[in-house]
């Protein structure tokens, strides 16, 4: 994506929808104007105030992939998408700044009528019994394979030690859309999906487990560890970060 021979910083931002508008507004607030160059539908752009920055307008999930490959220096994308693509995200990227929009929680949700299941530990017990009765593992419908495996395996974001509440007696079935409908349709027994208000879950007769919030995600400014960094791009990164309000407090 970078043109050979020219040192500049490549920034990937969401190409459409609410996420794009919020990103544009956040940059604007910091005195940086994101603009497309060439045709209005093109995917290339610039920051008017910073000549050595090239902007790429791409889909949010593609941004995570570009960061992983080091094809862009910086990206604005959801933490959920980054962590789903990179199980050890800190080896590949640095989360520079939480941007305060694009909030979405990745959660484990079960049918509300499972009144015997309110924790991951209950879920494992129910899953063991399910296997005995049905001869198959409970199915979890999700787009978030990595996050599901990690959480079910006892990993908890923001906690230093692993939880002993692991769930093992399950299998993942890939869901390409309308995940929340999978249990009612008989395609899965429970789901892992994003929710922002919880109303969709409720409408589908689903309930989040007490310890079923896998990740409280929001849009982040993310730096790739594999991009070709230089003095110039280091400086531009700091400029962009300052415009967005400076780094997150370390402990938060």
């Amino acid at each position, binding site marked *: 994506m970078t043109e050979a021979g020219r040192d500049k910083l490549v920034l990937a931002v969401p190409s459409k929808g609410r996420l794009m508008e919020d990103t544009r507004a956040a940059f604007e607030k910091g005195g940086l104007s994101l603009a497309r160059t060439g045709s209005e539908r093109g995917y290339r752009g610039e920051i008017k105030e910073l000549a050595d920055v090239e902007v790429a307008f791409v889909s949010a999930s593609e941004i995570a992939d570009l960061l992983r490959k080091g094809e862009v220096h910086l990206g604005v994308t959801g933490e959920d998408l980054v962590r789903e693509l990179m199980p050890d995200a800190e080896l590949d990227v640095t989360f520079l700044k939480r941007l305060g929009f694009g909030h979405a929680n990745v959660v484990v949700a079960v049918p509300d009528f*499972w*009144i015997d299941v309110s924790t991951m530990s209950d879920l494992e*017990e129910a899953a063991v019994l399910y296997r005995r009765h*049905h001869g198959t*593992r409970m199915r979890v419908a999700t787009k978030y394979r990595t996050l599901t495996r990690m959480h*079910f395996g006892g990993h908890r974001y923001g906690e230093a030690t692993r939880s*002993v509440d692991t769930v093992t007696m399950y*299998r993942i079935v890939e869901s390409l859309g309308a995940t929340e409908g999978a249990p009612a349709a008989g395609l899965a027994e429970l789901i892992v999906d994003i929710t922002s208000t919880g109303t969709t879950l409720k409408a589908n007769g689903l309930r989040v487990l007490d310890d079923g919030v896998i990740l409280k995600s929001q849009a982040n400014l993310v730096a790739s560890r*594999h991009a070709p960094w230089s003095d110039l791009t280091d400086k531009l990164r700091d400029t962009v970060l300052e415009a967005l309000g400076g780094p997150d407090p370390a402990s938060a």
Partner: protein
Amino acid sequence: MSPQSQKDAGLVRSSRWIEALGRQDTIVSSIFARAGFEPVQPAVIQPAALFLDLLGEDLRARTYVFSDPDGRELCLRPDLTIPTAQHYLDQNEGCGEPQRYAYNGVVFRYQREDDNLARPREFRQSGIEHFAPPSPPKAEAEILALTVESIRAAGLRACNVRIGDIGIFDALLEGVDMPARWREQLRHHLRHPAAFRRQLQKLMKPEEFGRALADPLFRAIEAARRGTIRHGDGVAALEKHLEDQGLAIAGTRTLDEIALQLEGLAADLRSPPLDPRSALLLDAYVKLATPAKDTVSNIQALLKGTDINIDPALEQFEDRLKLTSQEGVDISEAPFSGGFGRQFEYYTGFVFEILSGALAEDTPVAGGGRYDKLVETINSGVSIAAVGAAIHADRLLLAVRGGRP
């Protein structure tokens, strides 16, 4: 996976390595054949479902799964025991005839690091499986001895065997007074030491983990458990409760299962707590580490002052030691540990691993044991004893060469 590691060390094997591996395979296979194990060759590409439902997501995450143009979900085999067990079922239609198979072939497992020579993502496995053996302890001894013999014949003189026996744990669990449901929970948590300990703690104070269930429902479920009303009435009470709460029933999980769980919870709250001495005993057993020859006396010491009798399991352990030495392998000094074997979901009794000083402890050159539940799980219902072992051929060659390729 970082772009650096995508540059792929280890994609090409030297011809010297391949030739050496071939020679080693010949040595090992001929030992298996001489012992009467019939060679089988499962396909490299297998239906994914066969593995996924058996092995769960941990192994799923390390299996190369793909779809073919007909939309079938397939995988590169991550293991050879399961297709061999499937072959046994296909050939015998579950009639339980004794059968011995040997295999030798490549298996595939994702590894995050590409440059760890002891963990290549494709490697050869040489293994033997004995289904429905007439004498399982004899089969266990034979399979361990054959594995050790093969490893020695391949040139690894110094190797260490470590053993465990989940059968002893099961016998102990049966001997301790507690509801059957708690036994199942402890058996299930055995694989996770921290979860196991916490479960013991919990069972000593079940009332603290009680939950406020809706009153009429709780009473109905509780009555169902005590047998004052039938289980079916408990289910009816549950159904009424759900209706009152406006909770819709959907999906494959049944009210029957939920009622059973609730009955279990109700039972937990009313059961006398687990005797702390019993909890201590189970914990001490899981932590037990001793040479094989002292295992029985150590366990008897743990049991002193209790009325728990697990003599049959202990006798079986002693018999196995004797039988193994009759097969020409002395494991009396092999380290036994009470917790060993718990990490492998399918083993149900005797388990062993063979280690080389040239390789790290978490990369054994071979492993095996008794797995009575596998065939039953593949083909729901038919319970068939099975004993098997697999040699990680690439690791074995690496160990023979002192850890260098």
